[in-house]
């Protein structure tokens, strides 16, 4: 894991002191709200429906046990005993007091964490593959590249006031587990014909009001030009992105309006200029960072066999573990989606327990996934049963990864001031309705957003749900056919929306159409793609 150097620590400590002073001045009246608001947002502090909400950055979703433990302690000490893991691989606290916020940031800084750039029109937390460094299908560990870009983008003076927020994802596997092409910039670390490692740049993707899949604008940028090329992409956006209309201000609109060819031409021209400016950090810096992501001390000669005599354990192994690149190890996903639970929420005790389990069984490291679960990336297969037993005792052993119960749901109208409708109660009803049918229905990615901003990734769900406000009444639109993997596609709306019970019924009908038409090993998405929308529409609306 990356360790702060003295510069990192000094910057974060200085930010805490600065914010403490700003809060003090807000409370004593010397700083009015209109001046204070942008400053608190730069520190991840929003004012939401019920209280202040603090969003803490988890760089590329990676946490140490010590950091995770502090996240649990903050939930107890300053919040109401729980935290919410988000689709940006971050954590949010919903009940923060303004007067406590500087102390929370100070607690975070002690474990090399902060909330900087988790809000505002700047480059946000960089996301990555939750299986980084462990996946059997990985070219290299993408996190050193994500870390390099984190350092470049932190406090970057030119990109502090972009036309709109900016999200970057970095992956290094053919299997995209980070929705890479639905980011402002998606970077895939690739190998060219000569066997050299470089980066493919996908620019102008995103969800929200106008969902777009990012086109590839450069299939191979040499690694010693990674930062320079990123800077060129941002510069063109910063110069020409629409500042006159918030709804047209994301880079996806610029790339779409200019066209991929013209945007790329401008980026290449800017890139050629920037190459003469010597802005790229020396490769030695990348090597320094890489050294901090060295493999943990994997043991050799371990067994791959697992005692499957306990059927509940065997089911969990089948659903919630993935292939590791080192024999004898597995990647474990801890589902934060118990039947009827709130997707992504974990109590302070559960957070601390996961920290302890990471220390005991997974080389002291955890990952937050964009699907709002937690990953222990390196677990000995021989330890799986002991780990599962401990998780089970804490209500953390739900065996539903990538099934209909593993729902992504944004906070929606229960917490979010921008929401049109509640997301969580819909997720709860669906997970209760379909509990026990995960095997029959196979892989289904179901995603719910409480408004068009799409924090719940509804466009990318095999089944997506969008909450809308119909004359003050919650209404839910159904989308089918979205995907966020290597085969990224955007879901299509089935037709008129439903009330809360109606949407659950519509999903029941849609899954019925799937089961009736399924061929062989087809997933829901495969069947949808083969037979199209018409049979679903007909069954749902009659």
């Amino acid at each position, binding site marked *: 894991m990356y360790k702060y150097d003295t510069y990192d620590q000094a910057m974060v400590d200085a930010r805490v002191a600065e914010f403490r002073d700003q809060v003090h001045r*807000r409370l004593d009246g010397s700083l009015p*709200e209109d001046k204070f608001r942008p400053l608190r947002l730069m520190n991840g502090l929003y004012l939401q*429906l019920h*209280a202040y909400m603090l969003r803490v950055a988890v760089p590329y979703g990676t946490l140490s046990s010590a950091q995770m433990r502090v996240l649990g302690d903050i939930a107890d000490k300053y919040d109401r005993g729980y935290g919410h893991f988000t689709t940006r691989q971050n954590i949010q606290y919903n009940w923060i007091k303004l007067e406590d916020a500087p102390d929370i940031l100070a607690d975070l800084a002690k474990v090399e964490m902060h909330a900087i750039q988790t809000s505002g029109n700047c480059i946000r937390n960089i996301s990555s593959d939750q299986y980084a460094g462990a996946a059997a299908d990985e070219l290299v560990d993408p996190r050193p590249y994500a870390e390099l870009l984190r350092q470049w983008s932190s406090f970057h003076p030119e990109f502090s006031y972009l036309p709109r927020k900016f999200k970057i994802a970095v992956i290094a596997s053919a299997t995209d587990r980070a929705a890479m092409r639905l980011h402002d910039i998606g970077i895939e670390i690739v190998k060219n014909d000569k066997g050299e490692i470089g980066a493919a740049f996908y620019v102008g993707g995103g969800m929200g009001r106008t969902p777009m899949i990012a086109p590839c604008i450069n299939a191979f940028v040499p690694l010693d030009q990674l930062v320079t090329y990123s800077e060129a992409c941002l510069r063109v956006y910063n110069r020409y992105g629409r500042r006159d209309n918030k709804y047209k201000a994301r880079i996806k609109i610029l790339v779409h309006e200019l066209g991929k060819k013209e945007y790329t031409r401008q980026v290449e021209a800017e890139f050629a200029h920037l190459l003469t400016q010597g802005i790229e950090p020396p490769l030695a810096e990348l090597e320094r960072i890489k050294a901090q992501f060295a493999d943990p001390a994997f043991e050799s000669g371990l067994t791959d066999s697992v005692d499957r005599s306990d059927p509940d354990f065997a089911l969990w192994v089948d659903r919630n573990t993935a292939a590791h690149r080192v024999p004898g190890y597995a990647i474990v996903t801890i589902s934060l989606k118990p039947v009827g639970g709130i997707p992504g929420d974990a109590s302070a005790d559960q957070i601390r327990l996961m920290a302890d389990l990471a220390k005991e069984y997974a080389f002291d490291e955890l990952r937050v996934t964009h699907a709002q679960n937690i990953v222990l990336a390196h677990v000995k297969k021989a330890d799986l049963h002991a780990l599962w037993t401990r998780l089970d005792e804490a209500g953390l052993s739900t065996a539903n990864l990538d099934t209909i119960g593993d729902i992504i749901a944004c906070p929606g*109208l*229960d917490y979010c001031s921008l929401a049109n409708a*509640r997301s969580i*109660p819909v997720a*709860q009803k669906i997970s209760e309705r379909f509990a026990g049918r995960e095997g029959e229905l196979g892989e289904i990615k179901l995603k719910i957003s409480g408004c068009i901003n799409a924090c719940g990734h509804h466009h990318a769900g095999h089944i997506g749900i969008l909450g809308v406000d119909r004359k003050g009444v919650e209404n839910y639109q159904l989308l089918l056919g979205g995907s966020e993997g290597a085969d990224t596609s955007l879901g299509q709306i089935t037709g008129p929306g439903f009330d809360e019970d109606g949407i659950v019924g519509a999903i029941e009908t849609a899954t019925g159409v799937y089961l009736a038409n399924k061929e062989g090993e087809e997933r829901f998405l495969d069947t949808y793609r083969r037979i199209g929308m018409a049979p679903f529409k007909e069954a749902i609306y009659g």
Partner: protein
Amino acid sequence: MNILTGNDLKTGAVTWWDGSGWSLHVDDAADAGAEADTILAREEAARHVVSAYAVDGEKTAEGVRPAHIKERIRALGPTVRLDLSLKPADPAAGNWVI
């Protein structure tokens, strides 16, 4: 009714203008009538409240009911965590919101 709501500056808690100060309980909400803008400006300037605004509401047999669901959820708390709401002992409290 023209009722006023906002958040407590220090704690962020949802509050309602009760005619002389800010209450946590929507049932205490007073009709600000044509005085709304004056009260909001004065109270924000005095740092008694932040992000305050006026909303429609009506007085019903059960108390004051804001017109929009968003304000009713603000008045109660998250419907999915009634234990953290203002009515933790009432399992049906969420029905009031709908």
